[in-house]
């Protein structure tokens, strides 16, 4: 066998020392609490689950404040949990003397109910500057069962965006109920009982066919114009284009 060169022998010693050192330290000397991922994950989960609770959760409030909870259950605020308005209440559960705050002024209610065009249609919104500006909201609306003092006559109470678009349109003077049949129950269960939309061309044709007497309405030949379609499939009735 050929003689192993001397430099290889030296190198082999150094490499052997390094490798045995690393292997010994990593696999034998260091405790598994340092090297095993499962320990780290377990301790992380334990640390996470031990964190403080700040919000108590809706169901607990009802245990002591059952009357308010009952009242809220059937009203418009049934989806609003207690801590949404009253803030975190875990410390109140632990020490009932720490009462959660609630401002009685106007500044809180408007976070949700001030008019904002990005809010979904049908969400009750008011213009805070115009709507009873000096009164606190709770004067007329019980926050646990916020029925408005009178059932809104105006659709704009919930459909503010549509109303604001319509007021600058050629259809401004046409009332909502001229075109939509609104069952009374819509004001109570708005998502399940819905108003109707006109389902014939002749409906819009009452004003817009060329034989109509209505002077300010643009005229078309109902027999040929957009033959097979309902008018609102192309034209936006809340803001029809000006001719």
């Amino acid at each position, binding site marked *: 066998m050929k003689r192993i060169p001397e430099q290889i022998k030296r190198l082999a010693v150094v490499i052997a020392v390094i490798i045995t050192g690393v292997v010994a330290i990593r696999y034998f000397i260091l405790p598994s609490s340092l090297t095993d*991922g499962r320990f*780290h*994950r377990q*301790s*992380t*989960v334990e*640390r*996470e*689950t*031990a*964190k*403080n*609770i*700040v*919000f108590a*959760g*809706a169901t607990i409030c009802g245990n002591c404040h059952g009357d308010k909870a009952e009242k809220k259950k059937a009203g418009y*605020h049934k*989806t*609003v*949990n207690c*801590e*949404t308005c009253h803030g*975190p209440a875990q410390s109140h559960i632990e020490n009932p003397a720490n009462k959660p705050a609630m401002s009685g002024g106007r500044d809180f209610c408007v*976070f*949700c109910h*001030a*008019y*904002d*065009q*990005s*809010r*979904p249609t049908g*969400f009750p919104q008011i213009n*805070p500057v115009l709507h009873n500006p000096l009164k606190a909201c709770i004067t007329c609306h019980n926050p646990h069962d916020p029925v408005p003092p009178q059932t809104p006559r105006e659709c704009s109470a919930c459909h503010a965006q549509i109303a*604001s678009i319509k007021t600058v349109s050629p259809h401004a003077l046409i009332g909502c109920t001229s075109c939509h049949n609104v069952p009374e129950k819509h004001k109570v269960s708005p998502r399940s009982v819905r108003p109707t939309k006109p389902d014939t061309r002749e409906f819009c044709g009452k004003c817009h066919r060329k034989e109509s007497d209505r002077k300010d309405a643009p005229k078309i030949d109902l027999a040929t114009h957009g033959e097979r379609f309902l008018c609102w499939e192309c034209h936006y009735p809340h803001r029809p284009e000006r001719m």
Partner: protein
Amino acid sequence: MNRRKFIKNAILFFPAAGVFRHLLKDAQAKPGNGKYDPANHLYGMGVDIGKCIGCGLCIEACKKENNVPKEPFFCRTWVERYVIKRDGSVTVVSIEAQKEKPRAEETDVLRSFFVPKLCNQCENPPCVQVCPVGATFATEDGVVLVDSKRCIGCRYCIQACPYGARYLHPETRTADKCTFCYHRIVKGMLPACVEVCPTQARIFGDLKSMASRLVRFTRINKIHVLKPHLNTEPKVYYAELDGEVR
């Protein structure tokens, strides 16, 4: 014992053994000694865009519950407002809880809505894939957590998250993000943001549960997730998600 007797006993043996096994299994599967078993749960969240009113109470509640810095530069969850106009322009802003001044009404708007965002707790999480020390990991019940004692603050996970859900906590100098309020959900409570949402636009649930609000949500709505082409398999399911949302 002779052969006949042996066969007779064998014929009785197998059904007897089967019954025995069943009884043994029932005895072991006691209705839980109360211990939480993560293998029985898989958490997800549903977001109904049609219900979000952009009040921002979820952002504030999350910060209170989870010790997130109050400044708007660090968010575990946030809400974006989209305004899409007839000329095709799309404007997006992130709303700040409780600081929203009334905005001037925009004209010629086609669609406008709010989109709550948070960590999607992906089933195929790119952040877990790139963490060099395994400090971020997915639990068995489907929540991605960060081990703040092991995180070295290299911020690779922040770069790898396509949704911008992660940030570097200025005090611990480790990566941080929404944990679905893990400390609440393992006790059967709801995450703080779901708790305070006034319109129930956020729906939390257990995908493995037999009866769950989230499962129903995914049954009756057409569901979208953010950035599906990246194959991160998010577990935050959006209903009525507009195509302009990134």
